[in-house]
């Protein structure tokens, strides 16, 4: 089991759940499976060409996937994924 942490701005899509679960596979698989369970989430994470948006980071445990293998980064049981968008409130 892999935990995915949903940030506050995306929680309206996950019925306010701050954490959801996914199964092993790549980040691409994870985004697809999140999107079938919570339609609309993919559009918030990825742009029209399917690339991760430049103001949204995904971390596997403590590592930013942009510095791993991007969306092809593989998840294994016990990993924790955090979705972290830029926020600007002050």
């Amino acid at each position, binding site marked *: 089991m892999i935990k995915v942490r949903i940030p506050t701005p995306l929680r309206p899509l996950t019925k306010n759940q701050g954490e959801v679960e996914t199964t092993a596979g790549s980040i691409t698989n994870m985004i697809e499976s999140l999107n079938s369970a919570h339609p609309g989430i993919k559009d918030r994470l990825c742009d029209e060409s399917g690339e991760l948006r430049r*103001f949204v980071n995904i971390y596997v445990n*403590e*590592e*930013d996937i942009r*510095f791993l293998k991007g969306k092809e980064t593989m998840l294994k049981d016990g990993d924790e994924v*955090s979705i972290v968008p*830029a926020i600007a*409130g*002050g």
Partner: protein
Amino acid sequence: MELTELQIQRYSRHIILNEVGGKGQKKLSQAKILLIGAGGLGSPAGLYLAAAGIGTIGLVDGDVVDLSNLQRQILHSTATVGMPKVESGKKTLTAINPEITVNAYHQLVDADNILPLISQYDIVLDGSDNFSTRFLVNDACFFAKKTLISASMFRFEGQLTTIKPHAGYPCYRCLYPEPPPAGLVPNCQEAGVLGVLAGTMGILQASEAIKEVLGIGETIADKLVIYDALDMKFRKVSRPKDPACPLCGPNPKIKDLNLDYAVSCTI
């Protein structure tokens, strides 16, 4: 300059700490810190920095105090509604510590005025409320080689990091290369923010600033701290330098502040 009798009394709980001492307290009194925004984050940060005896505090903000600010912006009070935030803030900070100098700049920062402004300070705290200012402040601090302590918040969640690419660490664009396009991310006015979250995040900013001045403790310049008030969880994730960074990478595309910050970054 030696500490006076009254200063020794005022700062005795600092001076007794080995990590601060009389020497550290003098460093604090010589430090110059600029707060971008005298709002939710700037309020608690400013209060503690003033109390800690930071010798010069600059407040820059173009707004006036509004009744809806008072739920979190504790520099201000019902009596100062309608007053420029920087004037209201200066009053509060000077009342806590009349020994320090507080400079009030009632203006918005922009590409033309930011460099001369930050050049007068050692450390900058970003407590602004929009992406265009955050990218501008990051870029300006990069060019001026100033350490930037950045915090931001949204509803129940806060983020914090220290930005000092001049010391080999990543910049804000290494973390988020581009701001969201207009309209995609709601601001606090539209989405709300838990008032006390501003206190938590602003005080963490002040704490990191004081550590920078004193040169003590662990830096978070290679981390992003994420705080979730509802889960009561702090997470730290790694924040590497991006070799493709358009600002601080080896082949930079951004060479000055001549970008259209307002258009490309407005939320």
